[in-house]
């Protein structure tokens, strides 16, 4: 995960067949991190990144806010509850969901040249 260039998010959303759950999504991303362990994300995720996870409870938003993560992509079609979405709106963190598995989503991102 050594990405310094910023990448436009919109084309990635289309490639991932992702559905935004929050009103706003960031224009750009600085990289990505994949983990379902919150402490692992707290240890390794960089600010401004896209976080892929299957966890959907509200601590995902707390962790994302703690690390200034730009957007969270829930894989395997998972969706958090309305409370979690409302909290993400308030924290300014974008939430999206994709029907792809984490592996497929990562592969898709990689193929678009997002590295």
């Amino acid at each position, binding site marked *: 995960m050594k990405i310094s260039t910023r990448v436009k998010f919109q084309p990635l959303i289309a490639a991932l067949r992702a559905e935004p759950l929050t009103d706003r999504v960031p224009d750009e991303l600085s990289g990505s991190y994949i983990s*379902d*362990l*919150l*402490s*692992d994300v*707290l*240890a390794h995720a960089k*600010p401004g990144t896209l976080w892929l*996870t299957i*966890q959907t*409870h*509200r*601590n*995902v938003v*707390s*962790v994302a*806010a*703690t*690390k*200034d993560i730009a957007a969270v992509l829930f894989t395997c079609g998972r969706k958090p*509850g*309305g*409370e*979690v*979405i*409302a*909290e993400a*709106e*308030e924290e300014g963190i974008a939430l999206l969901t994709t029907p792809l598995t984490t592996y497929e989503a990562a592969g898709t991102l990689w193929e678009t040249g997002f590295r």
Partner: protein
Amino acid sequence: MHRAGAPLSDVNTSDARRISVAQVLVYELRVRDAMSKPPITAAPTDTLRAVQNLMKARRISGVPISDGDNLLGLISIEDIIRALDKGYIDDRVQQHMTRNVITLRDRFSLVRAVAEFDRHEFGRFPVLDGNDRLVGVLTRGDITGCLMQHLERRAEEALAHEAALRAEGVVDDAADRIVVRTHVRTGDYDSAGGVSQRMRQVLRDRGIDPEIRRRAAVVAYEAETNIIIHSLGGEITATIDPDKVCIEAVDVGPGIENVEQAMQEGWTTAGRLPRELGFGAGMGLPNIKRCSDNLTITSDNKHGTHLRSEIYIHKAGAPT
């Protein structure tokens, strides 16, 4: 009132360049803390005249129209005036109500609610919960009333807390010190991150280097989840000074059997539920250590665990 339990105090001992308690409150308090509930509503089959009488009786200027807790529309005093003027006051509400009503969520902070009032110039907003159920109505008056009430309580708490600290000789009258403190309950995974969130806000408002802010937030978050997962309950305090942040987590037990072992990455004693939620990876204490400039942990089975982490604030570039 706060998602991580009732804060004991937010103490602010400086007079200059401080964040006012009211400023902190509008971020902390939620729409659901201030809204009028249960909402006074009318049914779509009621007549406009019935709504007019309801407004008069309850001294309100707008009524959400609902089917149970399902919001369908809104009738405002302007709608009533128009009905009287045009002579259709005995029509049913459903023929004339505003259907695309702008709402607030009960979780929104008051600062966001105030922004919505400024943007839309409405006198009131119906409030929905996370499941789209109508749970209340918010007016500007509700916000003012709620702030006044909390300011008064907060002022009393701050004075009492400061007096207690002075008695212990803890207060050094350091300028710009802010203390954020919260009770943490065992197993309360839904509330994790309360102190961390408030601390981040203070650090952001002060323009502290984002990397330092993130390190402090990681320490506070991990320390808080440790209490939730492993202890019988405790308290977490973040003391924010101009030159450092000090995070203290104190619990009532049962204590860490072997601190050295617990500091090793991957070592965990967490049960199944926290692990399914993504906690308990055995990285909490190692994360805290990595993010701290100075860390001490004392633990025994009589007094529980006391963790103290310091993060130094040095002058840095502009925040990103």
